[in-house]
Each structure stands twice: as structure tokens, then as C-alpha cells.
């Protein structure tokens, strides 16, 4: 569903993403992990069509993003890390506008909008201005927009930031339900518990390169640890913990 081939992004002499290959199949939740500045958000932005790759190809639902950007984007839902929503629109207006961008109109649109608002527990806020929403509510509204047009693939950048435990639980169950319906989800996150709990496969990116890929068990094996916690595996794979120096520094 999402296919990335030899993706590269260069900023002057600095290589942010260096030859990334990735396949996210239908119904799969794929975790995209890595330390800060590893190239996660740059990769996600390129797949979303917000950043031009230096080289490499991106396919969404079989459409080449460079050759047929509209067709590729029509199959994609995007949930950015810092959601931008028109502050002076109501939640309902924002979703209807967003639906129009995907060519949705006419009968059934109002029902679909209400359905999504209810799913993300924003039903009673439909006619309120977005400026009065908390960060978590804005995040849920952006998720409504991302799933509104029934995308075949969804890109999520840090989904749990700013969400309360109830919101986080809701999002997890929505993502699971969507993947059961065949939606491919590529999720970048720092929350290793979430990745461990939700993802079918995980790719770990470091300095722009994928250094490990597999299921949680496969990653544990690669890390050579039997530790139950994914954190230990992640730290081992991404270059040590620095814990040994902590005592000296503190």
C-alpha cells in the first residue's frame, strides 16, 4: 500500500534521509522509530507530499507520488505532529472543507462528518470554534479529517503527543479497527510502549538509514537481549545508552 524505494533527502552537505526502503502492506500497522533528528519526520513529510525528495520513489496505493501526486494523495490520510486547523472555523466546518478537498460532497457527507466526530468523541463540539479546543481535541479532530475520506493508507507522526490516557486508548482502538479493515498505517512515534503494543512490524531509523526492521520479537533477537522492554532493545540498536556515564555526570 505504501512503498518507498531508495528515498534520500539532502540539505546541502547534510543527508537527513539516506536510501530508505519501506513497504507497508494493506492492514499492517508499521512503526517508524528512531531517536530525535534520525529522519523520521523528514521521511513522513516526503511521503505526505510536503517535501521534495532529493532522489527515490514513493508509491501510495500503486500511484507514484511524483508522477501522479493527486491520485496518490487521494488514497492517503495524514496526521501531522503539529496539527494546523483554521482556528476560526468550527469543527464541523473544518471537516466539511477537508472533505471537499478530497472531492467528497452531496448526500451522506453530513452523516459521515457526524459519524467521525462521534467516533473521536467530539460530537458535541461540532459547532464550536477550533480556537477553543485543547491540544488533544485538535489532535483528535485532525484524526477525524484523516479518516474522513476512507483512505487506503494513513501516515501518522507522533500520534500520542498531548493525548490523555482516555484519548490515547481511543486512538489505539481506532487504529486497530482501521487496520482490520485493510488500512495500512505508517506510524512514527517515540512512545515505545505504543509501538510494541500496536505495531505488526517496526523499522528503526538512525542517521537517515534503516538499521533494523522486523516484529518486536525479531528486533529483540537482533538486539541480542531477552529484556521484555522494547526500550532496552531500542537503546542497544541505536548506539548505547550512555547510562554508564550518567553516574559520573550527576
Amino acid at each position, binding site marked *: 500500500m505504501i512503498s518507498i524505494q531508495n528515498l534520500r533527502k539532502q540539505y546541502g552537505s547534510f543527508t537527513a534521509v539516506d536510501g530508505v526502503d519501506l513497504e507497508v502492506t494493506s492492514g499492517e500497522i508499521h512503526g517508524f522509530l528512531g531517536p530525535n533528528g534520525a529522519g523520521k519526520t523528514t521521511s513522513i513529510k516526503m511521503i505526505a507530499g*510536503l517535501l521534495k525528495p532529493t532522489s527515490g520513489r514513493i508509491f501510495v496505493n500503486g500511484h507514484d507520488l511524483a508522477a501522479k501526486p493527486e491520485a496518490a494523495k487521494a488514497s492517503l490520510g495524514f496526521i501531522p505532529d503539529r496539527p494546523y486547523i483554521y482556528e476560526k472555523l468550527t469543527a464541523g466546518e473544518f471537516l466539511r472543507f477537508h472533505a471537499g478537498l478530497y472531492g467528497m460532497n452531496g448526500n451522506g457527507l453530513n452523516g459521515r462528518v457526524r459519524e467521525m466526530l462521534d467516533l473521536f468523541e467530539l460530537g458535541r463540539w461540532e459547532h464550536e470554534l477550533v480556537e477553543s479546543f485543547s491540544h488533544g481535541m485538535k489532535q483528535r479532530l485532525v484524526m477525524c479529517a484523516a479518516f474522513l475520506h476512507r483512505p487506503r493508507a494513513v501516515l501518522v507522526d507522533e500520534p500520542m503527543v498531548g493525548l490523555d490516557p482516555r484519548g490515547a486508548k481511543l486512538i489505539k482502538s481506532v487504529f486497530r479497527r482501521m487496520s482490520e479493515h485493510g488500512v495500512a498505517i505508517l506510524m512514527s512515534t517515540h512512545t515505545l510502549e505504543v509501538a510494541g503494543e500496536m505495531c505488526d512490524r517496526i523499522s528503526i531509523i538512525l542517521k537517515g538509514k534503516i538499521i533494523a526492521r522486523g516484529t518486536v520479537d525479531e528486533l529483540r533477537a537482533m538486539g541480542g537481549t531477552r529484556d521484555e522492554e522494547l526500550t532496552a532493545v531500542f537503546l542497544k540498536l541505536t548506539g548505547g545508552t550512555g547510562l554508564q556515564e550518567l553516574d559520573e555526570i550527576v
Partner: protein
Amino acid sequence: MQPFTYLLLPGYWSSRNRIARTERADVARASLFGGVGVLVFVALFWGAFWITTQLDAYEELGDFLLRIGLSWLFLTFLSFLAFSGIVTALSTFFLSEDLRLLLATPVAVRRVFYARFTKTVLQSSWMVVIFLLPVLLGVGIARCAPCMFYVTALLTVAPFCVIPVAAGTGTTLLLVNVFPARRARDILMLMGLVFAGSIVLLLRFIQPERLLRVESLPDVTGFFATLQSPITPLLPSFWAGETLFASLAGGRDLLHAAALWTTACAFTVMLSAASERWYFAGFSKSQEARKARFNQLRILDMLAAFLPVSVVRRNLLIKDLKVFLRDVTQWSQLLLLLALVVMYLYNFQVLDLDRIPYMAGFIKNFYAFLNLGLAGFVMSTVAVRFVFPAVSSEGAAFWIIRTAPITYRDFLWSKFWSGVVPLLLMSLTLTVVANELLAVAPFLKAVTAVGITFMTFALVGLATGMGARYPRFSSDNATQVAGSPGGVAFMIAAVSYVISMVVLLGWPSSVFLWRLSRLHVRPFRPDEVALIAVCFATAIALSTAVFLYGMRSGVKALEEMG
């Protein structure tokens, strides 16, 4: 597929929601601005009406001048629209937050372009249209123009606005593909201010006052040749002027009208094609991080190390200076200020006092005090723009100061010192150099130099303190902070203080100089000496009180912030 105008809907819906949820304060603000707008509209209408009726008295010459006037009017707007188009396009096409939402959706770049270009044209030209409306109405009514004139005016102004904005947008597209968008914005801002500063200096250095001297008046032919020289038939401003002038008398100038429309359409089509090719590359580039400038300014740290201040104040000072130097919107305005200072001093240099020799001494001394007052006003304006927003400029990062183990007194004093040093330098330059150019009495030189030093300390202290009492941490820029109610309150207090100081220093100085002049050799009476001393002492006391009140109330306000 929705038409491109669909992408303009959020703006329309937002305005509708804003109006529907209007609060009383919004109504008051809108009424105030609306009232001022109506006054300006009426003034422009009457100005245009009066000039046109006056020109009517000169028949052919009047027609000729009106025709040139219209071309000049449009020529002025042409450059304004082009520059405004460049700056607005940067924001609408590359820096606007909602682009990250729009460009992730399956909307064709062509549709995004048309929607954004419409927005750019509207945002860049609304001011020009609002200005032109009363002016053309005034001209039309004064000339009893037929209804077709007003229709032609609408049909002329529309393509006239599109052409320069399209050219500006094209320039932006080119710039952003060469430089990152934020860097391009800085470069443009700098260019704009250098341009404005140069115009100010140029206009002053050509000494327009010479035109008032009969002996320097040019001959009439030369005068008209000068007027006509920048008007070329190749510019849209000429086409717009000609089209409107023809319709004033009930005629039609289809050639120039067609030139306007075809050029506007051609520019839009060419720009659309260019944006399809280069827009996404430019947008992608606009998201790249910018590198810090002045990051090699180690000399700043080295110099600060020699300052006899505490580590806390030194670090706050270094931070403020670096932030200031890296923000083009801040320091670039100093260029304009520098141009104004040069012009200010130049005015004193070209003063022709010898034309009235018997009054020269009196006028020189009068100018010395006028200079003191003017320097005070200039300082108040600079203080409200650069010193008053100092506390607010901490913005969302103010928590760092609040949670750090430093006192608010230390914090505010660091703001005071970073403001007072450059302002003292500027105010002393203004007064000392101007007094040297005027060659005023040594006594006055001393009084004004000491006076301006006290005034600088008082005004900077007041600005720092009031800035802390009325902070606006959520403001985007310093200009907004300066224009806030707190900023206005500071200006009122500062102007009152400057006037008081000029009176307190001016009266005793004039008595002193009068008594010392050769015509009045009698010595001072004790009561005169006492009165002079009281005035000077009051000036010192007032300055000290203003300074102390400002700083103490500022520290207190910060401490009470909770």
C-alpha cells in the same frame, strides 16, 4: 472537482464566524478604525475634488496636468503593488501554516496557485483600491464624468492591480528557489528599508526648500519635462492613466484598456505555468531550517567579559544582543533610524542663519532648545519601539527567567543597560553635533548635553519599567507591543516629561544668556540665581523621580506577576 475558489472558503467562513461572535471590544475597535477610515476617505475625496476643480480653471494646461497627475498616481501605486506582491506572496505561497494541510491533500498545484494568487492580489491591493476609490470619485464628480467613467475605473483598476502583483509573485517564486523562504523574507525586508531610507535621504539632499526661492525656480518647459520624465508609455500605469482620462470626457481608449487586460491575463498564465514547474520545489525548500547568523560573534562574548557586571547580567545582555542581531526585523529598522538621524543633522547644517544676522544669536539658542525637545521626542519614539517591548520580547520563554535563581531586579536592570547605552550614544550625537553645527554658546552646549543625559536615563528607565508593567508576551512582534495601550501610556508620559524638561532648562538658560550678553552687564540678583538653581534642581529631581519610579514599579510588577 471543486473550483479553485473552494480553497478560499476557510477565509470567508472564518470572517463570517468572527463577525457572528463579535464582542463589545471588537465593535469599539472597529468603530474607531472605521471612523478614522471615513475621515481619511472624506479628506481624500475633497482633496481630489478641489485639485480637479482648480485645474479646470486652466483649460488645456489643466487637462495636461490632470493627465500627468493620473499617470503619476498609478506609477506610484505600481511600485508599491509590486513590492507588496513580493512580500505578500512569500507569506501566502510559502510561509502560511495552512499550506501543510492543503498540500497533503489531492488538490492540484494549479488550483492551489490560482487560490493563493487571488489571495495575494486581494491582500496586496486592498489598500490601493481603498485609496483610489475616493480619489477617482472626487475627480469624476469634479469633472461631471458620465457613469461609464466609474465602470471604466473598476475595469481599469482590476487588471492594473493584477500586473504588478503577478510580477512580484514571480520574483518571489524565483527568490524562494534560490534562497530559503525565510531568508528571502529577511533580504526583502532589508532591501525595502534600505530603499525607504535612501528615498528619505535623497529627497532631503536635493534640498526641496530651494524651490521656494524665486532665483532658483526652473523655467516652465524644464519643469514640465521633469514631471513627464518618469512616465513611459510602456508601463501599465500610463495605460491606466490614459484609459481613465479618456473616459472622463466620455470617450474610450480601447487600445490602452486592451493592453492592461491582455498583459494581466498573460502575466497570470505565465505565472501559473511557472508555478506548476517551480512552486513545489520552492515550498519544499521553504521548510528547510535556517542557519543562525552572527553565530561567529565571539567578540561579543569577549567584550562582555570585560564589563563590570555580574555573571547573570552579563549573560542576559549577551542573549539580548544575539537575539536582536539575529532578528532582521529588529535591527534593520535601525537603518531607517540612521537615515532619519543623518537627515536631522543635515537640516542643522543647511540652516541659513546668516540671512538675518541681527537675529542669528537668538535663533541659534532657540534652535538649541528646540533641538533638545526634538531629541527628546525622537528618543521617546525609539524607546517605545526598542526598549518598551524588551520584557515582552522574552515571549513564551519568560518561564526561563521566572524559574531561574535570579532576581527580577537583575533581569530588569540588564534590560535597562542594553537600552540605555545605544540611546545615550544616539541622543548625545543628536544634541552635541547639532549644537556644534549651530555654534551655540558654550554654556548652552553644557546644559543641553547634561540635560539630554538625564533625559535618556529617565526615558529608558520609564520605558523599561512600563514595559514590565504592561507586558504582552503573546505578541508576534515588537511593533505590536509598542502600539499596545501600555505603549501609548508610555508615550503620553514621555512627551509630558520631555516638555517639562525643555521648560525647566529653557527658561533659566535664556535668562542666564540674556544677562551675560554685552547689552546687560549688571550682575545677577540673588533671587534670580536662586530661581535658576531651583529650575535646574527641579529638572534633575524630576528626571531622577521618573527614572526611579519607572524601574521600581517595573520590578514590583514583575514580582507581583505571581
